[in-house]
């Protein structure tokens, strides 16, 4: 990119304005790079996944052709919950809200004809994350790409599952062990891989406020740092590869303040509390997605405007990558046309608005700086509480908050408060409780996944089960069980062996459940 930038009127602009710690300088409130988007735009990473692996592979290739620069995989609910497509609980959900992956063969189909050394891939998976990572590595290596060349992100953030998204498989402590197994494995063998994407997105979608999203997410990040340190890793060995994932909601300046506060808090805590020395450990990198929950089924085209403004907040907040929601997602999976408009929205922000020309253009605004400070202060109250509950450990404090249902109660309370405000008309949602005329009703172009996908996926799975070497599968699964029972072992090698024998996601999860047990949440309504 060329370094000098001019406005539409031809006025030249500097890369940054203002005094004090500049972008790229500790505590990175104004951004983690000096040049920010003048040097390099954010990654336009569009989340996709539906139907069978072949279906999603087609969408991936199309996104790459239209200028997307990273892949992001949405798995279907049975896969997210570690159940095979032929499990009784999977009925009606196979391939519906994401892509179905049962075995390494599905993973191979998913990335067929895509050069895994050349793309970065994000996989949104948590409970069974180590198994899916093993499958991705196995597919790459079967295709001749070494694991050290693989670049991407595994969500692998189990703590927020107990707090918000509820896609957990095992109790919290063995689940965190799986997270640290992945951290150890990638730290040693996959230097370009982000082993955890600490995610506030789902906390926010579950109904939290921006301040809660900020506080709970960073607390979870601290918890993983403590957990990885507890298994013997030096903080600078893994912290540079931790990344974050935030929601960008509709309250424009609050969102921007949240992103800025997140960077500052992380830098300070990593240096002062966790003793990080490597500058990269102090820099909070994050992906942003616009707020799915803010999309309305009423007058869905209005969502295009919402998404554009939320995306702009993410960019002004200094995000490293961005997914923009499609306007029809309140009702169904994004149609091809809607997904293209969403990507084009990012391209308008990047190339037409000029906001990418100057780093942190809002830095120094009295309101934005105040908002940043205020969100940091509110997050600090939560950290104090968790630290107290955990007897000086944020990790233990987070466990305690999960067990007592505290996080869930706080989130449910915020969700209900918002709902009441909307119902009372104290908050305007355009097209829902105000300006409702002009709703034409349902769109006829909704993307639907039918029962045929489920039947097809079951058939494919049955074929794999039939063709594989059953005794090799049993041996490999026995080794997984054995290693799971030894807390000091790293499960990743055993998982790699197991998926190579074509053991299914569900089979591996069942073996792990036998060792780790299952989890029933503390219900807070």
């Amino acid at each position: 990119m060329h370094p000098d930038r001019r406005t539409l009127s031809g006025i030249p602009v500097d890369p940054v304005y203002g005094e004090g710690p500049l972008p790229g300088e500790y505590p990175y409130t104004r951004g983690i790079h000096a040049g920010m988007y003048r040097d390099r735009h954010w990654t336009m990473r569009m989340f996709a996944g539906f139907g069978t692996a072949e279906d999603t592979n087609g969408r991936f290739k199309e996104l790459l052709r239209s200028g997307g620069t990273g892949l992001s995989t949405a798995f279907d609910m049975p896969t997210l919950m570690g159940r095979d497509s032929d499990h009784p609980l999977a009925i009606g959900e196979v391939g519906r809200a994401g892509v179905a992956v049962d075995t390494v063969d599905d993973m191979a189909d998913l990335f067929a004809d895509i050069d895994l050394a050349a793309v970065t891939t994000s996989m949104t998976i948590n409970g069974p994350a180590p198994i899916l990572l093993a499958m991705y590595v196995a597919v790459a290596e079967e295709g001749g790409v070494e694991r050290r060349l693989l670049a991407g992100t595994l969500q692998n953030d189990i703590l927020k599952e107990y707090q918000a998204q509820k896609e957990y498989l095992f109790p919290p402590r063995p689940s965190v062990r799986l997270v640290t197994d992945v951290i150890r494995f990638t730290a040693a063998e996959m230097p370009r891989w982000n082993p955890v994407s600490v995610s506030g997105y789902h906390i926010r979608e579950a109904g939290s406020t921006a301040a809660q999203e900020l506080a709970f997410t960073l607390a979870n990040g601290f918890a993983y740092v403590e957990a990885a340190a507890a298994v013997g890793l030096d903080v600078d060995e893994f912290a540079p590869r931790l990344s974050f994932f935030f929601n960008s909601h509709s309250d424009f300046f609050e969102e921007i303040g949240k992103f800025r506060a997140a960077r500052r808090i992380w830098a300070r805590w990593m240096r002062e509390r966790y003793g990080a020395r490597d500058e990269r450990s102090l820099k909070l990198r994050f992906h942003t997605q616009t707020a799915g929950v803010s999309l309305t089924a009423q007058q869905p085209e209005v969502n295009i405007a919402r998404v554009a403004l939320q995306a702009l907040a993410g960019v002004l907040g200094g995000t490293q990558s961005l997914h923009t929601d499609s306007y029809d997602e309140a009702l169904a999976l994004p149609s091809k046309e809607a997904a293209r408009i969403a990507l084009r929205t990012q391209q308008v922000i990047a190339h037409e608005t000029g906001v990418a020309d100057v780093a942190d253009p809002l830095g120094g605004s009295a309101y934005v700086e105040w908002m940043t400070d205020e969100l940091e202060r509110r997050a600090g109250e939560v950290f104090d509480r968790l630290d107290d509950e955990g007897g000086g450990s944020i990790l233990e404090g987070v466990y305690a908050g999960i067990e007592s249902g505290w996080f869930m109660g706080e989130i449910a309370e915020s969700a209900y408060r918002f709902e009441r405000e909307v119902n009372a008309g104290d908050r305007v949602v355009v097209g829902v409780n105000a300006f409702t005329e002009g709703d034409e009703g349902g769109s006829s172009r909704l993307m639907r996944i039918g029962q045929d996908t489920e039947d097809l996926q079951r058939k494919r799975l049955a074929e794999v089960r039939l063709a594989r070497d059953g005794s090799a599968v049993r041996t490999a699964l026995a080794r997984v069980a054995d290693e799971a029972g030894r807390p000091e072992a790293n499960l990743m090698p055993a998982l790699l062996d197991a998926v190579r024998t074509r053991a299914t996601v569900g089979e591996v999860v069942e073996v792990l459940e036998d060792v780790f047990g299952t989890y029933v949440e503390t219900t807070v309504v």
Partner: protein
Amino acid sequence: MGAAPIRVVLAKLGLDGHDRGLKVVARMLRDAGMEVVYLGLRQTTGTIVDAVEQEDADVVGISMHNAGHLTLAPLIVAALADAGLGDVPVVIGGVVPDEDLDELAAAGVGAVLGPGASAVEVVASVRGVVDAGVRATGD
């Protein structure tokens, strides 16, 4: 003594974990004076039928955000009927496009609450199917 509160069983059927809507609806119904028997996540037709029976529920509300409602809604309606509970109305909530409404009605679903339904709509819908049920059985 006033009329006894309406008893509602609320559950999510299937694997998806999006319980924000279910929790908000639970509070809306509580605040409208109803008794909500909350089953929460990952229920099967079997656990829902047991609860409706033992709790003598007037109505059952099922939330789905997994795009599986056209498969799953008829299953729960059938399971209730098989257990002799066919008179207990089923309300479906979650991500349900308008174009599916006729098919769900034909499958025996009493009411559907789409995204963005207000508290007033939720409460009115639940009361509506319960009142209609009382008229239908004639007592």
